[in-house]
């Protein structure tokens, strides 16, 4: 098990990002719980009419965010998409900045200009245009290569985004130039309302393999398993061997954005039985789990209150 995982960022709330000295299993659970409850809170705030626009929750995919970001260090860069809250919170722990941002406040990470999908913070960016961020992340990877450092650039995309041509232009160039780029493709089976069967011809992994880019494919919601694999992939990219793809088969438990969901109820119900908090939560004592959940709850309610009160 890796012990050199990225520490919580300065100034973040340890109740959300990890109490110093606590077991790794606890910290992972805490971080996933933090992301889950943050987004459930958002959806609730939406229902109250407290938020503007839209938001895409990653409920069910928290393990991906936690597993990948654990292996990133200062200088690395994440480029994320419309479903970016989990990636951002796992990376930064900045609950207040994101909450205030989505509330449209000046106190938000982008002063309310970006909202849910357009976030910028040290080592992190997101944009709501599917596919277009992939070359941007590759450009950051090229910058790292030219600078001669060993930083990596990580880009998160969804299965539906595999329909965008610029993804393939970029894979080709990234492979030709051996760029330190990790593409994390979260295959959650659905792109908005369209299932992969109606979206994607052929085999997903072969698309990357066609460019000679190694693909690591995993079907899991287990943060431990994902972290082990993500760690190897990040390390391989960092070693300078060129771009790689981590293809995670997972599932989105919530609707696509706000309240649009026509998926079969049965399908969703089955996935609730293997959702990441449940899978990993079994490893914790009931009392520890409960304590962590309470701590997260208290910390988050403080965040919401502070964000509401902020300018």
């Amino acid at each position: 098990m890796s012990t050199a995982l990225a520490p919580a960022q300065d100034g973040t709330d340890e109740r959300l990002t990890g109490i110093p000295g606590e077991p790794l299993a606890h910290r992972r659970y805490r971080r996933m719980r933090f992301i889950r409850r943050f987004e459930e809170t958002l959806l609730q705030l939406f229902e109250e009419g407290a938020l503007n626009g839209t938001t895409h929750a990653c409920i069910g995919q928290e393990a991906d965010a936690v597993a990948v970001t654990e292996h990133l260090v200062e200088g690395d860069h994440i480029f994320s998409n419309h479903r970016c809250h989990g990636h951002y919170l796992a990376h930064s722990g900045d609950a207040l900045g994101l909450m205030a941002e989505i509330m449209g406040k000046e106190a938000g990470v982008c002063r309310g200009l970006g909202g849910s999908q357009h976030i910028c913070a040290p080592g992190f960016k997101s944009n709501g245009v599917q596919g277009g961020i992939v070359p941007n992340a590759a450009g950051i990877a090229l910058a790292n290569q030219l600078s001669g450092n060993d930083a990596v650039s990580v880009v998160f995309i969804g299965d539906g985004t595999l329909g965008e041509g610029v993804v393939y232009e970029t894979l080709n160039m990234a492979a030709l130039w051996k760029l330190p780029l990790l593409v994390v493709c979260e295959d959650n089976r659905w792109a908005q309302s369209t299932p992969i069967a109606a979206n994607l011809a052929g085999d997903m992994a072969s698309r990357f393999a066609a460019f000679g880019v190694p693909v690591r494919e995993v079907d899991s919601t287990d943060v431990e398993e994902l972290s082990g694999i993500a760690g190897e992939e990040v390390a391989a990219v960092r070693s300078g061997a060129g771009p790689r793809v981590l293809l995670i088969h997972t599932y989105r438990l919530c609707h696509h954005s706000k309240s649009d969901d026509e998926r079969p109820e049965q399908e969703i119900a089955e996935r609730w039985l293997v959702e990441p908090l449940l899978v990993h939560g079994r490893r914790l004592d009931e009392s520890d789990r409960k304590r962590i959940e309470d701590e997260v709850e208290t910390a988050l309610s403080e965040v919401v209150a502070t964000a509401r009160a902020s300018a």
Partner: protein
Amino acid sequence: MIFAKELGDTLRGALGDDERVVLLGEDIADPYGGAFKVTRGLSTAFPQRVRTTPISEGAIAGISAGLALAGYRPIAEVMFGDFLTLMFDQVVNHIAKYQKMYAEQATCPVIIRAATGGHRGYGPTHSQSLEKHFLGVPHLRVVAASLYHDPRVVFADFLGRDEPVLYVEHKLLYPQHLTPPVGGRVGDLIATSDNAPGMLPTVRLSAVPAEDCTVTVLAYGYQAMLAAQVIERLAIEEEIFAELVVPAQIAPMDWAPVERSVAVTGRLVTVEEGADGWSWGSEAASVISRRLFGKLRQPVDVVASEPTIIPSSKPKEADVLVGSARIEAAVRAAAR
């Protein structure tokens, strides 16, 4: 020295002076050196930072955006300006937006160089001047190469600022000698430069002092070169005196030099090679009509190419594209 060579030297200087400058584009490496030879020699001198790319305009722009976000100064070449369409999403939804939507926490100073324009018989997909589609993009500067603007000054401005810019280079300018104003003259024409703060200079050319002109012609790029020849000829042969205003930056525009000229002449002819309608000239007409309503002696005349495909055949191409004859006819009509 000819423009293509001066531009190449400018890029070489930029690469030498600033480690953050990176050139990306199709076929730009040696020995080929780019379709118009602008980058010849540069990949040999700077192999890491001058990179030839696959035919992938979206990724060229998108990778440039990432470089710029990471603090580099990418310069992306578009082999034919027609393929700017393939970069449009990167320009509009990525490059031009990042700084503002991230509340100034990032900058994305990508420089895109595009070889534009017709008159060479390259036909419908290799001859267009598509810059009008980029003119209204918020937070994007559009700058046009001209013979009256030294590319060294232009690129020093680009590289010294944090904003993205589209630089359009009309293909027919590449083999021409650069003629920036020297001692207040460009050849036999009187030259004045307006240097508003934060703007590239706007050059004004006339055969007689500006106060004695009766028509203002507003043009950029290759059309400015043609317009200069026209106003010189009309002055000598027919004593029609027009002042030609040549901005480098065509969006956002510094309208002050145009206003100053039109305030004297009361007549404005705009010239552009792009297709007619919803264009740079229409914007000029709108702005000048609003600002100088009482002083205009006649409606602004917008000269632009026919809104159709650009034929390959030489005579048919000439029927579609603006050239000297159309400019001359418009200036004569305005002076009547």
